[in-house]
């Protein structure tokens, strides 16, 4: 918290922080079994930082869960494990690979695992009987996310019904549910990508190095730069070359593209994000390009 100004005004980062902390405390006060989704990506790292602050000097009073598609960046997993150890929180890994091996989900022919994440997530929530699930989604990411409440009610199938959301007034969040139902909670709803970066700078938050510019072997597919990965091999006509890139988002390594960038410090990233003309999902997510309403459809099925 910065030193208070004389006119008792909070800066926008302080306002966003205060709101997120308030939301997290509400959840812990009202739900028996909350869990925080933690992938090691920038939004979930910021969310975990806010959780640390919200309950300080006590430990974070809930577990974190990673829905692991098995297609990971090593740097991201390493930071995930580092944060978990520092904060002494319990990490639950819901493994897509294990679900494939067990035959509960089937790997699509193209090898992309985004869609089959949803049943794995839902199974894990069921198994651990989690009733409130913190997600790091932001409303500025996508037009369907822009429509979602901070407390997003999900039925017993984990489904979102965008035409029938609960009214949400002032700072009063209705978390009442029946057995089997759950609430997805989005403390970062009102943050933008730029806010996240300003906060990372202010709080000196460590991120996986791939968020900063580095040299990498990539190939160009549909205008997006993909790293050569065991699950993402170039086609014969796709040339592999070395470029300065960074990742704006980090998801499934076989689906997430890098962007050309020279920004190798947090200040340079802030400048870059402030002047970019493309949304982070538009620039980096193969999965959202398929249809106009890709995100809405996946959310209806129980995705974040």
């Amino acid at each position, binding site marked *: *918290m910065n030193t208070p100004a004389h*006119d008792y*005004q909070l800066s926008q980062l302080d306002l966003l922080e205060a709101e997120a902390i308030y939301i997290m*405390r509400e959840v812990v006060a009202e739900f028996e079994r909350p869990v925080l989704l933690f992938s090691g990506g920038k939004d979930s790292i910021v969310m975990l930082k806010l959780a640390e*602050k919200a309950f300080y000097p006590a*430990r974070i009073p809930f577990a974190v869960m990673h829905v692991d598609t098995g297609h990971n960046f090593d740097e991201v997993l390493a930071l995930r494990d580092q944060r978990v150890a520092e904060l002494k929180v319990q990490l639950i890994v819901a493994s897509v690979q294990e679900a494939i091996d067990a035959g509960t989900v089937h790997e699509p022919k193209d090898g992309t695992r985004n869609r089959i994440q949803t049943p794995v997530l839902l199974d894990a929530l069921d198994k651990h009987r989690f009733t409130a699930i913190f997600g790091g989604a932001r409303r500025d990411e996508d037009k369907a996310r822009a*429509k979602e409440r901070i407390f997003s009610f999900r039925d017993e199938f984990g489904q979102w019904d965008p035409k029938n959301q609960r009214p949400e007034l002032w700072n009063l969040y209705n978390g*009442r549910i029946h057995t089997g139902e759950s609430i997805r909670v989005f403390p970062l709803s009102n943050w933008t990508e*730029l806010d996240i970066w300003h906060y990372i700078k202010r709080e000196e938050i460590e991120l996986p190095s791939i968020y900063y510019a580095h040299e990498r072997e990539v190939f160009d597919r549909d205008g997006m730069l993909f790293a050569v990965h065991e699950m993402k091999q170039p086609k014969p006509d796709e040339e592999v070359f070395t470029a300065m890139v960074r990742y704006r988002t980090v998801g499934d390594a076989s689906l997430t593209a890098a962007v050309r960038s020279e920004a190798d410090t947090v200040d340079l990233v802030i400048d870059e994000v402030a002047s970019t003309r493309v949304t982070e999902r538009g620039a980096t997510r193969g999965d959202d390009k398929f249809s106009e*309403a890709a995100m809405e459809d996946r959310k209806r099925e129980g995705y974040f």
Partner: protein
Amino acid sequence: MMDILRFATAGSVDDGKSTLIGRLLYDTKTVFQDQIDAVEKVSHDRGDDYVDLALLTDGLRAEREQGITIDVAYRYFATPNRKFIIADTPGHIQYTRNMVTGASTADLALVLVDARKGLVEQSRRHAFLASLLQVPHLVLVVNKMDLVDYSQEVYENIREEFTQFAAKLRLPDLTVMPVSALKGDNVVTRSENMPWYDGPSLLHHLENVHVASDRNLIDVRFPVQYVIRPQSDEWHDYRGYAGQVLGGILKKGDEVMVLPSGYTSKILSVETADGEVDEAYPPMSVTVRLEDEIDVSRGDMICRPNNQPNVAQDLDAMICWMDESAPMRLGGKYSIKHTTRTARTIVKGLQYRLDVNTLHRDEEANELSLNEIGRVRLRTTVPLMADDYSRNRNTGGFVLVDEATNRTVAAGMITEAS
């Protein structure tokens, strides 16, 4: 320092709310190229004559199919001194509760009217709701001026009619402006098509409207949200009351009272994870520690002994009913959520139902159905620490939840607590 202005759109269906927000985002160059491409493609595929900027906020499949807004879209943009959080709300009467959701946290409401149609019932309803929710600043936006040849006379007539209606409402700050959301007149820059208008553009107004003084810095209100008690050797005796300041300024050494118990103590420290702070004020999330070991738990309210909220089980309140499955009935029992406290409540009386068009009070009414507004008397199972909504939106507002369906069925604004 960069601050935040939250604003919400309001007004009847098709009056151009989403188009206006689209225009604002587009002309401030805050829409990303891939979003523009996507919107152009949809417009083109549908055979529209021009790019439908409403698609920038109407993000649901059903909204795009029907060409209307169904639920609030939140959008963000910033100019050098301000970050804006926009709630673009639906005009359709069926979705009034979503408008109420968007307006409840707004510092400013933009009520749009179509210049060709003038004020319609829904414009009055939304202006009334904005005043009921006490959104501190209201702008009447007379839109579609391009369709009335930018006529000053049309504008003045609407302005006159609205001003008369507004005189009956509680609107602390009213501004009126003529725009064309479609063409961009007076949205980001002042229009050359309306030389007779000498006010600011909409963006200029949004950037300059003064919102700092809208908070209550006088009445100390700190509802305890959660008790922090680390189970660790290092912090063995630590006991902190976490919460968000809803009013006033809290400082170390201040004498405080905890309600409803009435115990008094002094503030030992006001803390965040970053250390002690000198002062806490709205809407900071902090942890307060007290000098004495007294019984304090979630739902209690910390205030000053000489400035207390009402500790009340009987409440008079304005209610906006939001549930289509059942009306509010006399004798109905609900769960009530107010600050960090949850109780049960029974509807003891319905003084009147309001006709939003004429503001006539129907005292014969004995129920409120979807979207209806009335004044009720409630009795709660345990006391609530409440202020009049006009003094503090956060200690004067509550919601009712149906205990069987768990739906949020009403928004309430306390007018008197005893």
